């Protein structure tokens, strides 16, 4: 846990000066950021920029999980600010880690893990800031927050395996997850500092070739949802690879860490 100190030291004031002077943030907001812990699941195209900007904003504690330990060591940790406590989770049990953090950021690259994180967050009562990208498109929303839907409310059943394309198969333009990862960091900041209008019950669609964004109005939480509804049938984690019929990985991915 992070010690609750109701003031900022001089160094922090200097470091965060440009956001401290924003009336919406100020000392109040900066202290909220500092006492918030965020779990980033996935250290690839989405997770890296998200981690960078959350560190820069002064989030107090960041947990990072990736299924590939080698990639974690490639993470340019030296550019992450040393004041933030960075915990690198060796365990792939991301869903158990959900309980230990205030907000979870889904920066993963496969269906099974997305369902796992969703259920983990619903069971642990945490908001899930979910981003995804493929080819020239990106998507972003917050699940399980303020009466909004969870992933299963939208997609109770996983897609047929033959319809699933990952970034190794379909390709992706690197800056697209860069943009979505930054937008995910922004949503985390808004939840943590309690400012603005978080992207809940809204789906942001990004079309990079067209250079356009669209905001979709989404359904509310569904009363009959199997995990977040009023009589949930899912009360503990299941076997997600079996559920989806696909491996919890983006195999053969050439990961470019910035």
């Amino acid at each position, binding site marked *: 846990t992070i010690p609750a100190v109701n003031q900022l030291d001089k160094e922090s004031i200097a470091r965060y000066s440009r956001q401290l002077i924003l009336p919406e943030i100020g000392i109040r907001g900066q202290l909220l950021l500092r006492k918030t812990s965020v779990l980033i699941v996935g250290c690839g195209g989405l997770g890296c920029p998200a981690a960078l900007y959350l560190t820069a904003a002064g989030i107090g504690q960041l947990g990072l999980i990736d299924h590939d330990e080698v990639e974690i060591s490639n993470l340019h940790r030296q550019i992450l600010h040393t004041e933030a406590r960075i915990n690198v989770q060796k365990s792939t049990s991301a869903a158990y880690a959900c309980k230990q953090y205030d907000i979870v950021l889904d920066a993963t*690259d496969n269906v099974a893990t997305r369902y796992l994180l969703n259920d983990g967050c619903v069971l642990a009562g945490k908001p899930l800031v979910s981003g995804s990208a493929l080819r020239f498109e990106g998507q972003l929303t917050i699940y399980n927050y303020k009466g909004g839907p969870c992933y299963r409310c939208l*997609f109770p059943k996983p897609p047929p395996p033959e319809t*699933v394309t990952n970034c190794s198969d379909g390709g992706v333009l690197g800056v697209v997850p860069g943009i979505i990862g930054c937008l995910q960091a922004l949503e985390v900041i808004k939840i943590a500092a309690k400012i603005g209008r978080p992207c809940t019950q809204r789906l942001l669609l990004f079309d990079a070739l067209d250079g356009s964004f669209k905001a979709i109005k989404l359904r509310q939480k569904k009363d009959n949802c199997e995990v977040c509804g009023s009589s949930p049938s899912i009360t503990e984690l299941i076997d997600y690879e079996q559920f989806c019929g696909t491996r919890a990985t983006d195999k053969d991915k050439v990961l470019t860490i910035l």
Partner: protein
Amino acid sequence: MTLPVKLEFSGGAELLVNKVRSHQINLPNNDSKWTLRSLLIWIRDNLLQERPELFLQGETVRPGILVLVNDTDWELLGELDYVIQENDNILFISTLHGG
């Protein structure tokens, strides 16, 4: 009177309709009103190039596809029972998983 509507496909769903993302169409005159239910049948018979099960499952869209009418989740509009209006913009988007 035909019913003009704009159909859009993205998130990979466009691959099932010859990679064409935007289709301006005129639905033929019908005795009954056009609903999303009847539209899906029309799409299966007139637009789908690939195996229909990559887009449809029974009378609805296959899991992982979200249907939006004028930037609104069809769940808020009655899903398959929604009655299509002139110049509606109907988007079929596949949820992305990549990162």
